[in-house]
């Protein structure tokens, strides 16, 4: 089968992105469909709170950072000049040269710059990727960055690369519209934007839609907590011709159940059907575009 990767994303945090991702995945599990969920919110991974399974693999994700051998360094300053991230601190007059690992992006320019063989690479761990089998055809993969690491992109990409190619893949995307979100969206076939019908929700939705439009990504919207706020979000979707895939009414009971780690699709067949319907709507959008 052809892999289908669906990213669940939102510009604004707390709109229910993980709620939709975990319940969609859970509905697929109950329907005995092969599925993988990848928690790409590597700064604040939360999917693990909802699923149990057997850990089968745990690996660190590394980045190369330079180590400067001061006995060979001639203080020519070329590495400092080549570094676009200000990660090499150099005071030639004092013969001081230091690598600031937190700022290094691992581009490798300094290695190319050095003519004195004074720079070699060291591996620095950025985070880890854990794979947990839920049953013989479905698994959960978590990307988790270390505290204090500037970017989660490399860890996210490594986690997505682990996803089984013969299953439906749900990516719980990081919030926002910057690099981690873009990389996640870029590796997906379809992006579901979860929003809430409030002015903040709409403003952030617009940002996400603009970003995805620039990337020519297919997208659809789930309105969570419908019934609160106002109707501007719906007007916007009509104006932009973006499919409204699902509405989840605001309910204190849903919020309370979710807060304790209980998925609404676990005990409620109707909710399972709602999420399977969401899945089918996404597939139809994709088929429509391909035919």
């Amino acid at each position, binding site marked *: 089968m052809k892999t289908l990767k669906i990213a669940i994303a939102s510009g604004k945090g*707390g709109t229910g992105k993980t709620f939709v991702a975990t319940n969609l995945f859970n509905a697929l599990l109950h329907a005995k469909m092969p599925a993988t969920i990848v928690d790409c919110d590597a700064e*604040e991974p*939360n999917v693990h709170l909802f699923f149990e399974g057997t850990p089968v693999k745990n690996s660190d994700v590394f980045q190369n950072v330079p180590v400067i051998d001061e006995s060979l360094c001639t203080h020519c300053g070329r590495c400092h000049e080549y570094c676009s991230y200000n990660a090499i601190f150099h005071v030639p007059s004092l013969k001081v040269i230091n690598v600031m690992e937190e700022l290094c992006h*691992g581009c*490798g320019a300094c290695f190319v710059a050095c003519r004195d063989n004074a720079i070699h690479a060291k591996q620095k761990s950025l985070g880890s990727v854990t794979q947990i089998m839920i049953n013989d055809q479905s698994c959960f993969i978590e990307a988790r960055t270390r505290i204090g690491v500037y970017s989660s992109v490399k860890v996210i990409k490594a986690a997505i690369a682990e996803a089984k190619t013969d299953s439906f893949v749900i990516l719980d995307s990081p919030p926002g*519209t*910057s690099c981690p979100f873009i990389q996640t969206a870029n590796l997906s076939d379809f992006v579901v934007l979860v929003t809430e019908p409030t002015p903040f929700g709409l403003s952030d939705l617009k940002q996400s839609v603009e970003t995805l439009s620039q990337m020519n990504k297919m997208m659809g919207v789930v309105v969570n907590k419908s019934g609160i706020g106002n109707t501007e979000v719906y007007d916007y979707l009509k104006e932009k011709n973006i499919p409204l895939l699902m509405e989840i009414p605001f309910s*204190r009971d849903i919020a309370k159940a979710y807060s304790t780690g209980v998925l609404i699709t676990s005990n409620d067949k109707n909710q399972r059907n709602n999420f399977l319907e969401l899945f089918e709507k996404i597939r139809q959008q994709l088929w429509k575009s391909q035919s």
Partner: protein
Amino acid sequence: MEVAIISGKGGTGKSSVAASLASIARNILLADCDVDAANQYLLFQPQHTEEQNFISGQKAVIDYSACTRCGKCIDHCGFEAISEVDGKVTISEITCDGCRLCMRICPAQAISMIDNNKSRLYCGTFRHGHMVYGRLAPGEENSGRLVSLVRGKAKQVATENNCDMILYDGPPGIGCPVISTITGIDKVVIVTEPTLSGKHDLERALDTVFHFRIFAMVVINKHDLNPEITKGIRQYCNLNNVPVVALLPFDPIVTEAMVNGKSYVEYAPQAEISLLTENIWKFIQNEKP
């Protein structure tokens, strides 16, 4: 004094609490560091006094009349951003990190860099003082650097206008933009909610704040949604010697106020949540870290 409101998890009500704190203050400088999804300007509609371009980074582009397809750039790119597509060396705009290595090593000098320049920094005045905020253009990056710029500008504007307090509305998560927001400030207020995700993210946010040795206090928003987890969060904070300065109730008035273009303290000053938020404000001002 510089104070940041952060949350770890998004959607805990951080920006609503920040807006309300700003409404209590007199002559405050409110800086929106959530540059991916700036929202404070929507509520407070500031009168702009200044607008600056922000070069968020650069992207490599190939001059195909000069490219010899030698493939050296493909081998050297540390981000796997360059590949040959249909016989053409192609740089993925999305994956390019702007490191310039390909430009430097290209034997044919066929690669140059162009600026990403659609992001903006704004300054202005609003009904409770001054405002500085950044808006990262969709798809542009380097939000951490834009946050640094917002902070630099905020300090300058605060000094010029004798604002005693700079309040930063921080971004979600614990990555680069959050670190830029809290580095070197006086106090951090973490707004959390009683959900398993909220608690987990609070713990990561607190670790980050401890890493930078900043005084932290916690607000539990929507505390009545799950009393048990609220209790768990209080215990966790207690063990880590972090004060829980307010338990805010779940109140639809928060969304209602937003729809009406107001902070909840402005919209319903006598509501319980508003009175409790005044306590947070007092605590921020009195507590010496």
